[in-house]
């Protein structure tokens, strides 16, 4: 692994289904983030984790949950997907507070 990876690359999901988006980084960054990108709205923060074992809510957390059991992994779970969660999801990480964030390649999720 080099940098930050996300899986799956894309997914079509039926409404009501549970889905976990995976994010892994090998840079030993302390902080990790989940954003969603929607046309005309830019990127909006869903959840964040400043260090392993801690998480916090961002601007648009409803319907999503995260965990940070270790430094490398930061999965995002949609407990019961709804069509409004159709979006491109980006995971990011940064070494320390206010350092530049490095982004994964994104996951394109469609909820029907």
């Amino acid at each position, binding site marked *: 692994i080099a940098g930050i990876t996300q899986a799956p690359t894309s997914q079509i999901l039926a409404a009501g289904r549970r889905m976990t988006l995976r994010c892994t980084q090998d840079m030993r960054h302390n902080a990790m983030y989940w954003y969603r990108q929607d046309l005309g709205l830019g990127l909006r*923060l869903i959840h964040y984790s400043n260090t392993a074992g801690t998480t916090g809510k961002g601007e648009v957390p409803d319907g999503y949950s995260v965990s940070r059991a270790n430094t490398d992994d930061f999965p995002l779970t949609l407990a019961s997907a709804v069509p409004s969660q159709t979006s491109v999801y980006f995971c990011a990480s940064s070494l320390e*507070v206010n350092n530049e964030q490095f*982004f994964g390649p994104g996951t394109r999720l469609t909820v029907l």
Partner: protein
Amino acid sequence: AQKVTQAQTEISVVEKEDVTLDCVYETRDTTYYLFWYKQPPSGELVFLIRRNSFDEQNEISGRYSWNFQKSTSSFNFTITASQVVDSAVYFCALSDLANQAGTALIFGKGTTLSVSS
């Protein structure tokens, strides 16, 4: 409240023209960081620059330059002699210690730059 405004939704230029992308920010903190990211058609987000609030020196990197002015709360990005490969969506972002979400970035809505040959 923290906010980033990129008033230019779309800009179209012809190759070799210079182009400036505007970014205006709002924050109540005195210590903060500003960023620019590029998102080419392939979709990935590429980090371009980070600038802290205590450093108002302009920066130049090849054809790219950035003008940071605290007096007008602006952090503008200029591409000199634009090229087709510069076509992308450009995002300005803000991070400050008063941000409720810790170190997360607040993004502007982006400016889509199209450079034609």
